[in-house]
């Protein structure tokens, strides 16, 4: 067991025992050694199943919905960004959420790992050692540089230590310098407009409208999504039609502008591998440039729409 897991368990236990919180939301080991699942501990005993390691990719903020009583969330940087965003948007009261920050140097991209190793069923354990991820298999150990097997969004993370937190377990890690230069968008930037249009035509044509992206996203909490409405019918319902898919994904990117924490859950959840983070990161860059706004990076943060106001407007158009 890793050091961090021990600390998380100990702190969770403390929080529940003291009665400070009624629930701790964290991770537990999943069905295989390279997977984790969310874990909800409401008794001190249940904290024994908590883990925290390189496999804990899920954004736990998605499980926080208008809690009536105090909950603690074992929060990575992106989880914390999402928590602050939804608190700002009335989905939880700040006083009801204890952000137990954990540092994060990137979480495992299972798909990428499996593809790379080629022996999925034989994995016995996965652990971090320094800058490497060590995979123990039946046929011995494989060591890979962490950056090669973590989710792409982790390689440009600006919140490896939660910016807003009530406490921190473990030592802070500095943000990636790459975050502000958006290396992930370089390819899209280099394309002509026609190439970009063709690129998205190819990508979005794959969408089967399973809404796994929406389900994984902490910022998607509308009682009814615009895409499901009939009057008006903003987008054609059902998959298979490019236009409806386009409307859905573009509409979603619009709605996430200034609200996305770059956790990558949507892309990770996508069964047909649409690079959804490209749209979200593109919009993050736009809001950062135009409004100096990055979702969930500070406690005092206002909603993006509040920054459109006359009193806040920096540059006057026309």
């Amino acid at each position, binding site marked *: 067991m890793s050091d961090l897991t021990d600390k998380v368990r100990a702190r969770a236990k403390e929080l529940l025992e003291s009665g400070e919180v009624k629930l701790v939301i964290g991770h537990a080991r999943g069905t295989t050694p390279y997977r984790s699942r969310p874990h909800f501990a409401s008794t001190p005993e249940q904290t024994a199943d908590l883990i925290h390691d390189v496999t804990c990719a899920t954004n736990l903020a998605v499980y926080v919905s208008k809690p009536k009583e105090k909950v603690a969330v074992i929060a990575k940087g992106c989880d914390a960004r999402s928590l602050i965003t939804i608190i700002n948007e009335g989905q939880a009261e700040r006083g009801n959420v204890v952000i137990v920050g954990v540092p994060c140097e990137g979480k495992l991209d299972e798909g990428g790992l499996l593809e790379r190793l080629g022996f999925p069923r034989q994995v016995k354990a996965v652990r971090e050692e320094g800058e490497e991820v060590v995979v123990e298999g039946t046929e011995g150990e494989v060591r890979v540089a962490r950056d090669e097997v973590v989710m792409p969004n982790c390689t440009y993370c600006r919140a490896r230590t939660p910016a807003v937190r009530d406490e921190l377990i473990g030592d802070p890690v500095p943000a990636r310098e790459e975050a502000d230069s958006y290396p992930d968008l370089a390819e899209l930037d280099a394309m002509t407009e026609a190439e970009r249009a063709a690129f*998205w035509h190819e990508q979005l044509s794959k969408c089967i409208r399973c809404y796994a992206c929406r389900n994984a996203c902490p910022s998607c909490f509308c009682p009814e999504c615009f895409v499901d409405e009939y009057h008006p019918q903003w*987008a054609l319902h059902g998959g298979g039609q490019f236009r409806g898919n386009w409307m859905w994904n573009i509409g979603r990117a619009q709605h996430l502008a*200034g609200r996305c924490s770059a956790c990558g859950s949507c892309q990770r959840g996508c069964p047909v591998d649409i690079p959804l983070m490209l749209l979200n990161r593109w*919009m993050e860059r*736009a809001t950062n440039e*135009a409004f100096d706004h990055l979702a969930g990076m500070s406690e005092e943060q206002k909603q993006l729409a509040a920054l*459109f*106001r006359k009193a806040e407007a920096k540059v006057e*158009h*026309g």
Partner: protein
Amino acid sequence: MAQQLTAETATEERAEVAEWRPTLLAYLCNWCSYAGANLAGASRMPYDAAIRVIRVPCSGRVDPLMIYKAFERGVDGVLVGGCHLGDCHYSEGNYACQGRMTLVKALLKAAGIEEGRFRLEWISASEGSIFQAVVNEMAAKLRELGPARMGDG
């Protein structure tokens, strides 16, 4: 002579009919841009017939989905018109619009929709000639760009 001129102009316009004609959808605020369009009309300032106007009370009413929807349905260009900053009938609806449209512009760019297909313009009730110029410029640009594609055309 006036009639002669009319006939000539009409022939010129007709010549365009045979060609592909862009559709330009405009969301105009009731107090400034829509009134500016009315002034252009009342002053008989001819402009490109590609434009179709949907009147909204304020440019702040424009939901980005209304723009994406138009492109999704095959409209070739979208114009959003509001009052000049500081002159909004509702004090600052146009600021809300400006902020939102900043995002729309960024996202349309990401999606590969050419810059000339979307414009946000502040046109006052007295700027009929500016309305005329904007419509003509934009329609000309759309003719140059051809039909809008979202990668499938």
